[in-house]
């Protein structure tokens, strides 16, 4: 179960139709949670994962676009849980500190649409991640959502090689070089007659 996509996997993904789901392995204070973004329970890789969407096709949980965790990219996934009850909000408040920094791995997997069988390559680990501290959002009297972010291990490595094209970075590279302070500045030359 390699995490990289092999040439065969890439060929598979060129198909006209792909059935896929995201999986999250969350190490919460209340225990390990195995969740996927579909409906129902599904055993993949020897573990039973619980679906977190509601059966109408709407989502109780929204997952933001997943970024490619390459170097220089602060790859993260924002997860918003809606429709939560009072107990859950309380537990988030009580355990917010403990949740922060716990392991949260995100996986991807393709399936056969008809039989719901897992594709030959199994689960693909997106990145080893950590949970950020949860945020509770109130809007109006009825809506309560809990949002948290899964940060990748390389989240803190979000800096460009060799610095940016800014005056500060240029000064760091070549001390005393003021050249970039004039880049993009509108220069107005006033010639006064004597």
């Amino acid at each position: 179960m390699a995490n990289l996509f092999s040439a065969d996997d890439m060929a598979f993904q060129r198909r006209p139709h792909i059935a896929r789901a995201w999986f999250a392995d969350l190490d919460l204070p209340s225990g390990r949670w195995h969740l996927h973004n579909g409906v129902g329970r599904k055993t993949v890789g020897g573990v039973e994962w619980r679906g977190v969407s509601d059966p109408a096709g709407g989502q109780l949980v929204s997952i933001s676009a997943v970024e490619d965790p390459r170097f220089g990219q602060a790859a993260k996934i924002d997860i918003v849980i809606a429709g939560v009850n009072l107990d859950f909000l309380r537990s988030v408040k009580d355990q917010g500190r403990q949740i922060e920094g716990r392991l949260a791995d995100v996986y991807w997997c393709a399936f056969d649409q008809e039989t719901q069988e897992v594709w030959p390559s199994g689960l693909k680990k997106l990145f080893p991640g950590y949970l950020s501290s949860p945020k509770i959002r109130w809007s109006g009297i009825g809506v309560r959502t809990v949002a948290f972010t899964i940060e990748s291990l390389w989240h803190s490595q979000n800096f460009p090689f060799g610095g940016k094209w800014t005056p500060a970075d240029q000064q760091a590279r070549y001390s005393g070089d003021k050249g970039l302070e004039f880049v993009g500045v509108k220069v107005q030359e006033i010639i006064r007659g004597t």
Partner: protein
Amino acid sequence: MGRLISMPNGLWPRSMEPLSGPRAVGGAANTSIGNFMQTVAAPFGGWRWQFVFPVSKDAKFRRYRGWVTALHGGANATRVPFGDPDMMTLLEAGMTVTQAQERFGLPWSNGETWSNGQNWRVTAPNVPVDAAAERDATIIRLADAFWGHRLQMGDYLGFFPLHFGLYTVTEERGDGEYRIWPPLRKALTAGDFATLYPTMAMRLESEDAASAARGVAHAEEASVTLVEVFDYDVRDYFAD
């Protein structure tokens, strides 16, 4: 907490329509410059049906509104007996009955009816399952009895005892082996039977998924949108 209730006797929908279900979660499509379309969907399917109940009044409407209220916007689940109007005939199902027997049913062996004057209804026989199958499996085998080897694409079937689920045949593989959709909600054992009268557990999709409008003379047509409750969820959440 949650409980599983039965549909009141005599309450039948006028029309039913399958709607797109949970496969729409995170669905997407990519189009290339050459107009090649790649579709993306969630793999996990489930039933979602809209039932329309006919114009009714008096006892029928009382039963309907009671049933809808008892569902509490999805908090309770209901058994939905799936009477397939397009089911194979009894003859095709391997039974030889006269037209009168099919229409009026059969009395007890001593020639008597039930106390309300009604006979037993004639229904298609049950067929034993030929091979056990895991939960989530999509291939099933039925014994060679009655209609066991005669199912074709689109036939609805279910299993018992204690198995909630509606399955439709999507492929005939010969010798009583069939591919079904959706995948089995509960494992099949060798002692199970297949039936042409499946029962599914369903619940209201949301608080506003049912209507019960009452006019001056009678109640108007009412529509109800129900979603499937998987067999294991029935046991976990609706069996109190």
